[in-house]
């Protein structure tokens, strides 16, 4: 049961404010919340805060704060889920979620909130049901701009490098059909994976963890049935064996409650009637053995002259992707010992950039082609740094406080295990064949001599789906 709900911009300006029960203070709670949030001591978490007898629970989504207040000891899981569901809904109806779209669509947002929540209780959050009640049309921002092309997006917002012309589906509201009859019947299917990998200093894998989901954005008229066919070699659990080869294996799968699973066991087919808007059809997890090599390997070497305080780090980054793929926005982060004063660098490409900041070295690589190898040589002065005791004046042992390195990157249209989306046509049936995909992010704690390793968050997007 929610008392109030409000949305704040990243700077704390209230965009939306709604009081459901009228049982607690006025609009100034929004200001109060922001004051509390910014003045919070470092060791306390901002997720749940309280003032007097009121609890503030919020999520941060696309730079906005979505906050609910309640005076009851309610389930944090349900409430957080509700807030993120609201974020998705607002995104569906307004096109995309952001300060601009929210302030352009204030009327629509209030209308939605009225329908979703009544007296603080959830009525429904299904796009289908809400469609019948929502009258306001979304005000869509600029439909298309070249500027948008620079980033990789979900649902068809492709990059400059791709051959396909970009689609504006990612920022199109679901309900624009009322006036615009020419709307295409489109379905977008994406496979998104978050990967975290930990690599030991000797190069062995410590931890591989893949969180993947199949996301669907549907513009089809409601009630149309959809079948998603996974590859028949898709195995769940360690022991299951299907098909000829090792296939694609995940540890755990969970499905959205609207997915019918009658044919899943026999033919790996998911049947659903997708509501319009965004939906996570399937989530899966995979840990430990990955079927494909990690996308990156980092080979570091460190020279350290203790006498003169000169530290030299040579980093070689090899990209093990297939030559056709590439990684974008690769960013390497290497913590440095305190007191580093100067940096001189020799990088292997002109578009790369390296800088010091926050006690760490940041090495930015806008694009890394598969199979390529990049390197950077960094020289730093670290005056007065104590070394491991009992060592000579010059040593190759790195000083304490250096590393571990971490790496973050995005891999569009690539999956480590070869999961792809490919279209199939049928009469009135959209079906998609999708194979599982896995990605990876590495890192390792840096000890004594050897490698720092990488850690990153990768995002892998599958191909754009077809339209039926």
């Amino acid at each position, binding site marked *: 049961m929610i008392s109030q709900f409000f949305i704040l911009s990243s700077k704390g300006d209230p965009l939306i404010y709604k009081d459901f029960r009228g049982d607690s203070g006025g609009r100034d709670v929004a200001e109060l919340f922001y004051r509390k949030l910014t003045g919070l001591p470092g060791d306390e978490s901002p*997720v749940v805060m309280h003032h007097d*007898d009121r609890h503030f629970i919020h999520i941060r989504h696309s730079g906005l704060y979505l906050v609910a207040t309640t005076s009851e000891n309610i389930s944090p899981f*349900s409430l957080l*889920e509700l807030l993120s569901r609201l974020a998705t809904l607002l995104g569906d109806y307004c096109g995309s979620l952001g300060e601009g779209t929210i302030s352009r669509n204030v009327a629509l947002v209030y209308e939605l909130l009225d329908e979703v929540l009544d007296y603080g209780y959830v009525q429904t959050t299904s796009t289908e049901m809400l469609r019948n009640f929502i009258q306001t049309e979304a005000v869509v921002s600029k439909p298309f701009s070249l500027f948008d092309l620079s980033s990789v997006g979900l649902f068809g917002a492709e990059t400059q490098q791709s051959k396909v012309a970009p689609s504006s589906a990612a920022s199109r509201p679901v309900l624009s059909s009322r006036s615009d009859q020419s709307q295409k019947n489109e379905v977008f299917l994406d496979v998104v994976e978050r990967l975290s990998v930990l690599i030991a200093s000797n190069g062995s894998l410590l931890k591989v963890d893949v969180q993947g989901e199949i996301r669907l954005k549907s513009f089809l008229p409601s009630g149309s049935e959809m079948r998603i066919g996974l590859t028949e070699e898709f195995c769940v659990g360690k022991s299951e064996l299907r098909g000829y080869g090792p296939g694609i294996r995940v540890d755990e799968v969970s499905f959205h409650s609207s997915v019918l699973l009658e044919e899943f066991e026999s033919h790996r087919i998911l049947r659903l009637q997708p509501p319009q808007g965004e939906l996570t059809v399937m*989530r899966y997890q995979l840990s430990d053995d990955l079927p494909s090599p990690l996308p990156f390997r980092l080979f570091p070497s460190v020279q350290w002259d203790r006498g003169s305080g000169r530290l030299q780090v040579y980093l070689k980054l090899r990209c093990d992707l297939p030559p056709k793929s590439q990684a974008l926005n690769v960013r390497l982060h290497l913590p440095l010992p305190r007191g580093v004063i100067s940096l001189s660098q020799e990088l292997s490409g002109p578009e790369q950039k390296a800088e010091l900041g926050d006690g760490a070295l940041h090495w930015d690589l806008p694009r890394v082609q598969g199979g390529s190898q990049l390197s950077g040589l960094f020289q730093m002065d670290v005056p007065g740094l104590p070394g491991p005791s009992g060592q000579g004046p010059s040593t190759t042992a790195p000083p304490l406080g250096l590393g571990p390195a*971490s790496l973050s990157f995005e891999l569009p249209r690539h999956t480590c295990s070869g999961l792809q989306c490919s279209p199939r046509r049928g009469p009135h049936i959209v079906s998609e064949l999708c194979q599982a995909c896995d990605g990876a992010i590495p890192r390792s704690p840096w000890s004594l001599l050897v490698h720092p390793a990488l850690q990153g968050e990768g995002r892998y997007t599958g191909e754009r789906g077809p339209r039926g």
Partner: protein
Amino acid sequence: MPYLGSEDVVKELKKALCNPHIQADRLRYRNVIQRVIRMPKLDQWGQAEVLNFLLRYEPRSEEELFDILNLLDSFLKSSSPGVVMGATKLFLILAKKFPHVQTDVLVQVKGPLLAACSSESRELCFAALCHVRQILHSLPGHFSSHYKKFFCSYSEPHYIKLQKVEVLCELVNDENVQQVLEELRGYCTDVSADFAQAAIFAIGGIARTYTDQCVQILTELLGLRQEHITTVVVQTFRDLVWLCPQCTEAVCQALPGCEENIQDSEGKQALIWLLGVHGERIPNAPYVLEDFVENVKSETFPAVTMELLTALLRLFLSRPAECQDTLGRLLHYCIEEEKNMAVRDRGLFYYRLLLAGIDEVKRILCSPKSDPSLGLLEDQAERPVNSWASDFNTLVPVYGKARWATISKYQGAERRGPELPDTASFATSGPLIPEENKERVQELPDSGALVLVPNCQLTAEYFEKTWFSLKVAHQQVFPWRGAVHPDTLQMALQVVNIQTIAMSRAGAHPWKAYLSAQDDTGCLFLTELLLESENSEMQISVKQNEPRTETLNSFISVLETVFGTIGDIKS
């Protein structure tokens, strides 16, 4: 009431859960539940709401309980974390007498919890981590094989990292200790000083079990010579030496040189304490303390000066030749120049103590240098699942128990007033029928449980009048040992809404007290407590203005519980 679709079944469920008559009819009730939870149109919010409702139901028999559990089993596999956690809570509470069922449920919920812990939404991740910690308090080994899931990643926000470090600290065991310590060591040099310090404290916590490895890591950290690290490491050493005396030697060897890198009050106090207590094993201890004494005039924290006085006096006992001069100077400064009265008094106290002779000083000052039993005590604090089952899937684990206590105290003060407790908080506050009265209620389904009304204020005159006009309805004798602490008793009675009208002083013979209470039907209970000094028995006489045996029995059992609790505290 939330909207759960327009189905009649839901209305029936509402009725069923609020009406004891339908609850009593097992078959009917089971049908209702079965139909409601199978309702295809019930979305996740509806499911969570239904699960919350079911918390109010107390199954009549084991068979029925397991029926319900089987019916609800599919909810544990839902893709919505809210529903999974709601179902988990319900299972934990329903199966409170079946620990193996509870363990099973916690095993089942492991997957969803871990998935939430690595979820994209940081807020969800945080809530899940808090609940993982809660589970670990009761089942320390529960997540040990998944320790890698709790390794921090660089991009995570601060509050998640801190939670993960806490979790890592709690799930460490013989197999993973090496890897966990390696990982924690990496965090100690983190850019954020707060996080680095949390990691060091975590290593300190693990050191209670795996002392050697941890002390070695901590000693290496001292080599970094960074202020924020050194000060925390020294504090960790102080706590460790107190709990694990076997590491004293290693700590003493690591200490020389630290004083250059400590500037803050906490760190200085820890270092000075270590130098004072274990100074005889640290060759340069007197000289380090001498440096502190020389700078004492510019010392801003009185606590440091106090610590210095005690430490120097302790060291003087074991190494008099090296300390005598320094101690003299310090005492002189403290007595003659110090403006802080606490420090000055402490100085004077030690001075007079020294005048009384060195043996006297030794007798007073040489206390034990360690207390290993304290560490063992803390380890045993494994809490049973039932102690937190009702807090599961609420805000309590998210805030942390201690913070929640302060919050709810505040809220309790705010809310107390004419306002009735609202229904929703009732829904989470426990079953409709208190457990102890269950059998009785089965015999007499219409009689409610005994509910004592808070704030029943009777004047002494009215009490007296009523007391003499009524007959004694019940008399009983409780075993009682020792004297009575009236304050404790009064407080305990207050908790169960029994008001104290009058009480003898502590130690009076015979000791007497008069109590009054009122239940929700307006029935008054007047009680006399009598403790004769020669007997080890408390005699109670209860009078009632409406003769009703069943409520009287409940009232007696409440009193019995109170006396039992106080007796426990005393013994």
